[in-house]
């Protein structure tokens, strides 16, 4: 379990993390979602105790971070293992840092993450996906109850990403608590709970389903439309439209309740020269993400 209260952190006088509080229950996968530079990494570093907070408190399993060091593992955003050492030497090193001597457990970890064949390869020579696995394995060497993962799948191919996520579910099913930062929507949708952070502030928290209500009272319309700058321009000019978001041949329009469907249809039809019919739909997580990030929320 992770608890953070009122975390504040400034760099050079600018608040990068502003009164962030969160609670993650045991066994949950908690996703911290936000655009680049929102403060995700700063939050996770403060939770892991490797960056001082200006103020605020962090507890892991009811203890201070310093006391709880054996209870959690951390996978940083960057590859932080020793490139000159082999996979096995890296794993042994981290195991020893926690006083873990059970080699069978370590061997099993390597097998679980398909690193067996690379046991004696230099860590620096591994591909991106295997480096990520090694980082995860090193963080799991002492079988921690809580795992912090800073953008664990950034730059990873979809197949490996899926494998990693299957594994995150397995870890969660084993009772481990996972704290994940990401800016991938499909990953956010996989979390049990989500928090949304932008410019250092938490602006929404809940399940992936409930978080969509963070947009407030809005309607979401969609229609088949290949990208047209003109249409986008016309719609965005309508008062009350919060967001237009193009997905391939679908255009999503997020607008407050006052904006009538017919008004939008009229505007688009005028540009296109044909009659257009909008369909009402649910907001997508990405709609929420972009709308909140742009400050379109009120």
């Amino acid at each position: 379990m992770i608890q953070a209260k009122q975390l504040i952190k400034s760099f050079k006088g600018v608040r990068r993390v502003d009164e962030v509080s969160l609670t993650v229950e045991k066994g949950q996968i908690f996703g911290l979602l936000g655009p680049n530079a929102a403060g995700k990494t700063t939050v996770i570093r403060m939770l892991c105790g490797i960056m001082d907070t200006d103020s605020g408190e962090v507890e892991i399993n009811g203890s201070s971070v310093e006391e709880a060091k054996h209870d959690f593992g951390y996978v940083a955003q960057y590859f932080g293992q020793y490139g000159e050492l082999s996979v096995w030497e890296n794993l042994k090193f981290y195991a020893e840092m926690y006083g873990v001597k059970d080699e069978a457990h370590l061997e099993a970890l390597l097998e679980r993450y398909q690193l067996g064949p690379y046991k004696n390869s230099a860590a620096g020579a591994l591909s991106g996906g295997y480096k990520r696995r090694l980082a995860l394995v090193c963080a799991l060497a002492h079988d921690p109850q809580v795992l912090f993962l800073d953008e664990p799948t950034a730059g990873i191919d979809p197949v490996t990403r899926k494998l990693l996520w299957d594994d995150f579910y397995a870890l969660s099913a084993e009772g481990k608590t996972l704290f994940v930062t990401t800016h991938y929507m499909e990953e956010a949708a996989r979390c049990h709970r989500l928090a949304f952070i932008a410019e250092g502030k938490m602006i929404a928290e809940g399940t992936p389903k409930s978080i969509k209500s963070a947009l407030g009272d809005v309607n979401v319309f969609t229609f088949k439309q290949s990208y047209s700058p003109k249409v986008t321009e016309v719609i965005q000019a309508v008062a009350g439209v919060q967001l237009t978001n193009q997905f391939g041949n679908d255009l999503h329009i997020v607008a407050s309740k006052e904006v009538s469907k017919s008004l939008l249809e009229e505007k688009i039809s005028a540009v296109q020269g044909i009659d257009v019919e909008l369909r009402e739909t649910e907001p997508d997580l990405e709609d929420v993400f972009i709308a909140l990030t742009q400050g379109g929320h009120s």
Partner: protein
Amino acid sequence: MIMAIVKKELLQLRRDPRLMALIIVMPLLLMVLFAVALKLEPNNVKMAYLDADRSFFSDMIKTGLWSDGYFQMYSVESKNAIIEEIRSGRAKAGLYIDSNFSAQLIENEQPHITLYVDGTMPSLTTAMKYNSSAATDQDVTNDMYFLDEDAPNTVIAEDPFVMDTDVLFNPDEKETWFFLPGVIGVLIMQIALILTGITIVREREQHTLEQLFVTPISKFSFIIGKLLPYVVITLIDFYVILGVGWFVFDLPQPSSHLLLFALAFIYVAVMISLGLLISLVSQTQQQAMFVAIFIIVPSILLSGFIFPIEAIPAAVRVVSYLLPFTYFVEIIRGLLIKQTLLVDLLYAYGALLGFVVVFVSASVMKFKQRL
């Protein structure tokens, strides 16, 4: 396209203000320092003397030596004391005038006086010999010819007295004896500073430090664990280099192997802990390297390793005494060449230990297991 790369390199340099400061300030500072330091006008070379004769004539010799300011003279109680003063490093030269000097002089028996010079630094030895010629100058000897009126045809020696020169400790004035002990220190300094200077900053640059700080390791264990291997490696290096000095270059054995080991260990500890401190204050490996060089170069020039400390102007000598290497040079020459007693080296050992304490404390204060 070349210009694009040139521009990029310059921009990168400009974005590292600390490195820029090092690049500009370091050469300026060193240049001024060396320009002042390397005027090298040794004066006030300490000379211990015993004038057992205490006559008008022996006074004339002392005055001759004293007058041009090269030697600064003080008297000691015995002939042995002269040698001990030089062995301890308190004096670089000595003068002994026997009690029957003037009696022999009057009898035209051409008495001998002895000039002792420290041979550990051949360049200084040469300079001292040269400057001691003031003692046998015409101004001094003019009044020392005694004509026997009863035997006007007696052949009078050209020189009324003879000054023997006794080169102590390195009688053959071997340059290798003078340089090699210091060379060992320079090599160890380079190895230690470069090895440990980058050790932490590299882990920071490669992001391994971030991963390491999460583990439950204590600050103390981290620092000790980080330094121990380098202390051992550098210590082995020390004896390898010294071994070459002994077996290939005929360097003498030390007065005490225990004291030599103590020196090796403390000196290595000084350099490793200084390297650690460099690694903690530097933000990049490049900066660490520059700081290391910034320490190594003046160490070589101002420590007495190449030029006698006496030759360095007092203002710059302050810098000499802030460099650990100065004390190393003093001790290792004492142990290997002059067989100096521990008592006379204690202050230098103490100084080196002081450096360890300062560097380790500063490192502990500076080091935080935080990003």
